[in-house]
């Protein structure tokens, strides 16, 4: 098992190396003059360009610049925004909890609803139930996050006034940002403020979780149907086991395998989907930060955030692979 993990870690290194080269060149090869001009944008004056070139070492040979860049990255220095001068790493630590909360909310929605729906459809294949589930998952993969987000905001926010449609917390509540996880901070503040935090999380989670919901439903349905046709399931039924026991012990145990892989893959997609969802619901996380940084031409932030997103994505995939090997002994020994 340890060797398997080490081997997977070693595979991630060339990927991160390649990505760091591309992102390094991204900033150096931006259209519109040199990197200093690109970083400064409209604010570029000859003095500032000279100053940036000197402080960032932009006049040194490319390989020296690259080694400096990687050296800073390895020390956890992701540079600073040229708009407000704040360290990317520091702002990231404040904003990332909001994105994690949103991602977890979306996963709970997608897994909690997708897997039962998939199992339900698989139990009655080609029935009207199956048909309805198929149509739900078809629309789930066909509706853009922002269209669904605004539709939900219109119905449950504007028309029905049931749920809040922007931000993580009611700004009037006296809640101190301690952990920057809105729910945890609200619990710490007491007075049942946590209800407000959860209410804020519902609509964004549904909007972000709908594509994974459709994917999980489809894969669960296909996986359960496939396993149900296996010989050992027929044997289990033939020896008179109850339906429930066959489902839980013989079908789901095996049907879980492809489902877990897809859940891992979709977690990365959720992080990317957060970019759109956070913009729709004014969610103050990393996703809306990416968007505002691109709009402000804050390229250092964009560069660092893409690298951070990729690192998180690779880490999640690694965890999933290890979990998969743990669940499926056939992988471990091959």
């Amino acid at each position, binding site marked *: 098992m340890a060797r398997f993990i080490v081997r997977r870690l070693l595979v991630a290194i060339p990927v991160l190396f390649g990505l760091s080269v591309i992102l390094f060149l991204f900033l150096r090869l931006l259209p519109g003059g040199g990197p200093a001009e690109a970083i400064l944008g409209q604010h570029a004056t000859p003095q500032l360009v000279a100053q940036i070139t000197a402080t960032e070492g932009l006049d040194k040979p490319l390989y020296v610049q690259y080694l400096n860049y990687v050296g800073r990255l390895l020390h956890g220095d992701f540079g600073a925004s040229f708009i407000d001068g704040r360290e990317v790493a520091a702002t990231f630590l404040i904003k990332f909890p909001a994105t994690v909360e949103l991602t977890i909310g979306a996963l709970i929605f997608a897994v909690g609803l997708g897997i039962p729906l998939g199992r339900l459809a698989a139990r009655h294949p080609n029935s009207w139930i199956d048909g309805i589930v198929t149509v739900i998952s078809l629309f789930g993969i066909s509706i853009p996050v922002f269209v669904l987000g*605004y539709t939900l905001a219109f119905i449950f926010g504007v028309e029905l006034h049931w749920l809040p449609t922007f931000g993580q917390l009611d700004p009037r509540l006296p809640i101190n940002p301690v952990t920057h996880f809105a729910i945890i901070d609200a619990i710490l503040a007491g007075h049942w403020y946590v209800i407000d935090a959860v209410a804020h999380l519902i609509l964004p989670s549904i909007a972000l979780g709908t594509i994974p919901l459709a994917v999980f439903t489809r894969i669960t349905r296909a996986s359960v149907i496939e396993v149900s046709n296996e010989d050992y399931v027929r044997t289990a039924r033939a020896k008179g086991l109850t339906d429930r026991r066959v489902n839980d012990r013989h079908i789901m145990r095996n049907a879980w395998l492809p489902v877990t892989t897809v859940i891992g893959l979709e977690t990365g997609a959720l992080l990317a989907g957060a970019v759109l969802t956070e913009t729709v619901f004014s969610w103050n996380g990393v996703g809306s930060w990416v968007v505002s940084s691109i709009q402000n031409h804050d390229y250092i932030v964009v560069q660092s955030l893409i690298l951070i997103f990729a690192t998180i994505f690779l880490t999640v995939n690694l965890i999933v692979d290890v979990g998969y090997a743990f669940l499926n002994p056939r992988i471990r020994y091959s």
Partner: protein
Amino acid sequence: MATSAAVTIAPTARVSRGLWHDAFRRLMRNRPAIVGLTCIAIFVFGAVFAPLIAPYGPTVGELSNSLQGPSLAHIMGTDLQGYDEFSRVLYGARISLTVGVIAVVFGLIGGTTVGAIAGGAGGLVDGFLMRVIDVLLAVPGILLAIGIVAWLGHGEIQIMLAVGISYSPIFARLLRGSLLALRESDYVIAARSMGASPVRILLRHMLPNALTPLIVQATLAAATAIIDVAGLGFLGLGPGDPRIAEWGEMLTDSSRFLQSAPYLIFFPGAAIVISAVGFNLLGDGLREALDPRLKR
């Protein structure tokens, strides 16, 4: 003698007219696929004949006429500039569908080239190209396209390239996988033993047999590409020309009018959903038509 034997068999055996003809017949019998084709056809028709169908131009209107709800004169209402929403949805089909589909074509060209070289050459070349693909795949989803647009700047070609590049790894991996499986198949070994050149084996024997999963994947990718292109437009990374109607950009400022003009979200949103549903249904139908073994 041979002819009489053929005559006696003919009435019982269904005449096969080749893979594509058979697949087409199966597709035409698949009801969801027909629904999908119809959805796409409606928008293609609307896009092509927009100047004839649309009651107004995409940028014709008065500011005084801004944010009017749906009425007989403007069946989908008017937007902030007073432009007719129905006309803009029609003209938007031109941009959104074309950009989405061409982006997939770009991804297909790039991906299959890399996949064919990797799967055909094998060894070090394969190893290197797959690491490059891994790097692209490490940036999740639409984020890669966002980064590329940020780098290339605004414009339709830039969006096509960005979405195309972000889709190419899927096609490269798919083709490489099929090619690796085909390398050990009997007819490829036969062609090799008869002295066919590697390039000829790749182009004549292996590629045609690896094509069907690519066609299915490309059709399904067209659905997500339309959504991603609209997403870029929504984030303000669209064509960047307010005179151009694009479904995603039309939704950008909708949140401000959620209360007063929800129809500004509903109509362009429905257009994106219906065209994506169309390509998804067609893709699923093609999968079943091209691989009869998958029949439910």
